[in-house]
Each structure stands twice: as C-alpha cells, then as structure tokens.
C-alpha cells in the first residue's frame, strides 16, 4: 500500500492518541512490577509526537519515522525512550512510501534486532519483544485479514507476558514476584500495533 502524507499523519496521530489515552493504565501496570512511570514517560513522548505530527508527516515515510524515533528518544525520559526510539528510527532506515507486507516484515525484523541490541534483551524475558516478535510472525505470513490478525496476535502476546518472569529492566529486581502481571512495555507495544493495524484497515 501507498503511505502518503495523509496516511502518515493519521498513523502518527492515531498511535500517539492511543498511547496517551492509555497512559494511566500503563503506569498502573508499571507500578505493579516497576517504577510506575511508563505511562507518564510514554505520554510525554507521544504528546510531543502528536504536537508535531503534521510537520513530521511532511517528509517521506522513512524520514518521518526517523523523526518520530528521535522525538521519543529526546522526550520519553525512561529506557522506553531509546527502545521505542530505536524501533522507529530503524523502521525509518528501511521503509519507503510504498510498502508491501513482505517489506514491512523485513523492516520490522531489522528494527527488532536493533531493539534487542539496545535493550540487551531477547524474547521470553517479559518485554516489548514478546509482543513484537509474534506480530512479526503474522507479518511474515501475510495473507487476508492481516490487520485483524495483527491485533489478535498482539493482544494474545501481551497477555502471555503475565505468567512470565522478568529478566530485564526494573521488573527483574522482583524476581518471582514479577510473575502474574502484564509487562507494561508489552502492553504499550500492543497499543501501538493495534493503532497501526486500525489505520491500515481503513486504507487497505
């Protein structure tokens, strides 16, 4: 599909609005197993994205995604800033305005390697990666109803972090006590994937 200026703006605004709307929920999740600031940090970062969405979307998709990433790096203020910033900046390196499902999958795969390196983390450690890797699996499969399948995969994957024990980040200090709570980063990733899928659905 063609991701023109109008789609880019809608994408950035929708993602930002969804994250901002769920900021309290993200902080509640983080309060259970971390320092309780995930929602506050993500809201600060995505408010900055929302405020500049118009300007950011003027540039081609690659450049505008890098702009979103840089904004998150500078504004979020927690580890999630560099992690989500790296995700968006890396996507921006490989994507152009015309995006096929296979190209999106390749771009996400490269971006997830960058996020893994940034966070020194991997799948199974109760992090955002535990949502984004199953999402990549759906992108790789392609096929019909992709938006609905992406959302379902993200939802299930976020829920699957509940019984996991945290290995990285502040939650890892809790050891066994991190079990039984959804990872806040997994939830914020689910929100972002859901927003992107909804926008795609409207334009596909």
């Amino acid at each position, binding site marked *: 599909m063609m991701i023109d200026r109008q789609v880019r703006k809608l994408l950035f605004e929708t993602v930002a609005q969804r994250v901002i709307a769920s900021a309290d929920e993200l902080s509640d999740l983080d309060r259970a197993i971390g320092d309780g*600031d995930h929602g506050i940090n993500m809201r600060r970062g995505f408010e900055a994205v929302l405020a500049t969405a118009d300007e950011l979307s003027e540039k081609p998709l690659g450049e505008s995604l890098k702009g979103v990433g840089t904004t998150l*790096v*500078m*504004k979020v*203020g*927690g580890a999630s800033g560099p992690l989500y910033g790296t995700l968006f900046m890396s996507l921006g390196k490989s994507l152009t305005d015309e995006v096929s499902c296979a190209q999106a999958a390749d771009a996400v795969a490269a971006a997830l390697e960058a996020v893994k390196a940034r*966070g020194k983390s991997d799948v199974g450690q109760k992090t955002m990666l535990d949502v984004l890797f199953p999402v990549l699996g759906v992108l790789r499969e392609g096929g019909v109803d992709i938006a609905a399948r992406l959302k379902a995969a993200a939802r299930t994957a976020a829920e699957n972090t509940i019984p996991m024990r945290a290995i*990285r980040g502040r939650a890892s200090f809790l050891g066994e006590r991190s079990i039984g709570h959804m990872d806040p980063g997994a939830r914020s990733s689910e929100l972002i994937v859901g927003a992107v899928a909804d926008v795609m659905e409207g334009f596909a």
Partner: protein
Amino acid sequence: MSENVGIVIVSHSADVARGTALMVEQMVGPEVPLGWCGGDPDGGLGTSVEAIMKAIDQAWSERGVAILVDLGGAETNSEMAIEMLPEARRGRVVVCNAPVVEGAVMAATEAASGATLEAVRRTAEELTPV
C-alpha cells in the same frame, strides 16, 4: 596535552547526581572535567538523553569521557546519547558497569592520575561484583 579523562554522572535523581558530583570534586577538585545530570525532561525522576549529551559536552576531554550510571534507564539513555554524538567523539565515551557513587569517585581518582580511558573504566568496574 596534560588533560585528564572526563567523568559524567547520570542518575535518575538530580539530588543523587549532584551529591555524587560533590563527592568527586572533594576528591579531585578541578583536575578532572566533570558533568552530571539527573531527572527526566520534565524534572521528575528519570534520565534525559538531551541532558546526558550536555553533561558529556561539559566533561569533554580529548582523552575521553567515562560515564557512571545508576539504574537501567540511565544506562540505556547514556548509550543512546553516545550514539547521537558527533562521530569524532562517539568512540571516546564509555559507560562503566559500576555502582554510581563509588564508581564515580574511584574513576575520577584514577582519571586525576592521568590514566587512560580504559584504565579509568577498569578501575571503576573492579567494584562490580562478579
């Protein structure tokens, strides 16, 4: 050039960063270029890439800069800040895997002796339990 390796202190708390910087200054005075920062972009507990980049600039030495951090986000944001530096500086800044207060004081003491960046880092990291 006789300039010493610089030290940067990055904490989630501005009070911790400032307090640590005072302890470092008490030990080495003005001999070691020093920068510190703490708090998120709104001044709450957290760290800010922009503030870390400024602190690196403040502590800049041609012989390099060693960064001491407290918790995870401080480390991730410091690594991000290093990557965003001009290329000529990027390779001369390291994050030490050491406790922030003890590490900063030990690293600064080593730096004051004219030690290399690698030696400064090693000295700070000797404090890390294995």
